[in-house]
């Protein structure tokens, strides 16, 4: 895994700025607006994390794994069919395991690391980036997981869809944020949105699929090796009877 990540990172042809909204690229009023939107989620997220670790200290390792997964995936700038690069977000796994609020903290920490050390994203745009990657994505993942599980009863398909669609949604939200801040002189918000979404959306499709596959991979490991934890999180039934076909 680390060799693969290393290869992908090193081979990513030309590292460019930030895959999220770059420092200073949101007008101040929008930067403040998104900070205000994201802050309550972060506060609730910290409370949710404290509750999880106090109630079940044995889950700390799994929590670290969920955070590390986001950390790895957001370092992988993968080439895509559009001839440009972007990276997965890795927030779906943690959102399904620990509910989305926990991911709002873990995802923001990853974004903070990238903003401070890599000039990737930024502090002024951290609120907006946290909202798209660490809040909107994880909440979508959580809902998609439960909805798909209810409809199909297949856990791995639900995990795959949750991770892949959360990844796509992250970039759709980014496009909305940019379009709100930079409406086109002709066509306004919608024209801008089409433009930004056009840049991110197609690029993101294969990456979303990759993220879905990697998330199912880690899920397989967890299911084989740490059924106790998953049971604790009520993600598998007490008498494990996996019916999935994959």
């Amino acid at each position, binding site marked *: 895994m*680390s060799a*693969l*990540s*290393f290869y*992908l*990172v*090193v081979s990513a042809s*030309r*590292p*460019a*700025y*930030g*895959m999220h*909204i*770059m*420092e*200073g690229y949101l*007008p101040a009023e929008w930067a403040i607006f998104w900070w205000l939107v994201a802050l309550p989620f972060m506060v609730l997220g910290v409370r949710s994390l404290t509750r999880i670790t106090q109630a079940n200290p044995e889950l700390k*390792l799994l929590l670290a*794994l969920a955070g*590390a997964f986001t*950390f*790895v*995936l957001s*370092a*992988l*700038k993968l080439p*895509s*069919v559009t*001839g*440009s*690069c*972007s990276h997965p977000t890795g927030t779906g796994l943690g959102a399904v395991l620990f509910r989305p609020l926990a991911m709002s903290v873990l995802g923001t920490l990853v974004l903070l*690391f990238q903003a401070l*050390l*890599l*000039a990737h994203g930024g*502090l*002024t745009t951290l609120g907006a980036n946290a909202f798209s990657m660490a809040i909107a994505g994880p909440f979508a993942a959580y809902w998609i997981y439960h909805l798909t599980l209810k409809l199909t009863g297949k856990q791995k398909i639900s995990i795959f869809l949750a991770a892949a669609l959360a990844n796509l949604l992250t970039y759709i939200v980014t496009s909305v944020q*940019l379009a709100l801040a*930079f409406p086109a002189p002709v066509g306004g918000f919608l024209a*801008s949105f089409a433009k*930004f979404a056009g*840049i991110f959306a197609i*690029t*993101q499709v*294969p*990456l979303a699929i990759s993220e879905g*596959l*990697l998330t*199912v*991979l880690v899920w*397989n*490991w967890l299911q*084989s*090796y*740490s*059924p106790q934890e998953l049971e604790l999180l009520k993600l598998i039934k007490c008498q494990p009877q996996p019916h*999935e076909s*994959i």
Partner: protein
Amino acid sequence: MNQSKQGISNWLLLLGVIVLSVTPLIFLRGAEFTGADGQAQEAIGEIKPGYQPWFKPLFEPASKEIESLLFSSQAALGAGIIGYAVGLYKGRSQQPRNKE
């Protein structure tokens, strides 16, 4: 699902990821593979010419090399933690079997 079937499906998942990321490199030889964000930056320039970022990153990697060092450290650290956790879980799950 038995262990070996699971093993095969795990390799297939990895293979899928590799195929997805290598295919563009093979079929789009001429492409630059710059960041999608750089294109978004250009789009901002087109929509609002003359927009100046009003805040600078506090710290910028000194060169592309340093940047790739930091990026690979990010991936390595994360992968290390994942490997540690999965390894620990795997060892623990096999322990009772060995004792018997």
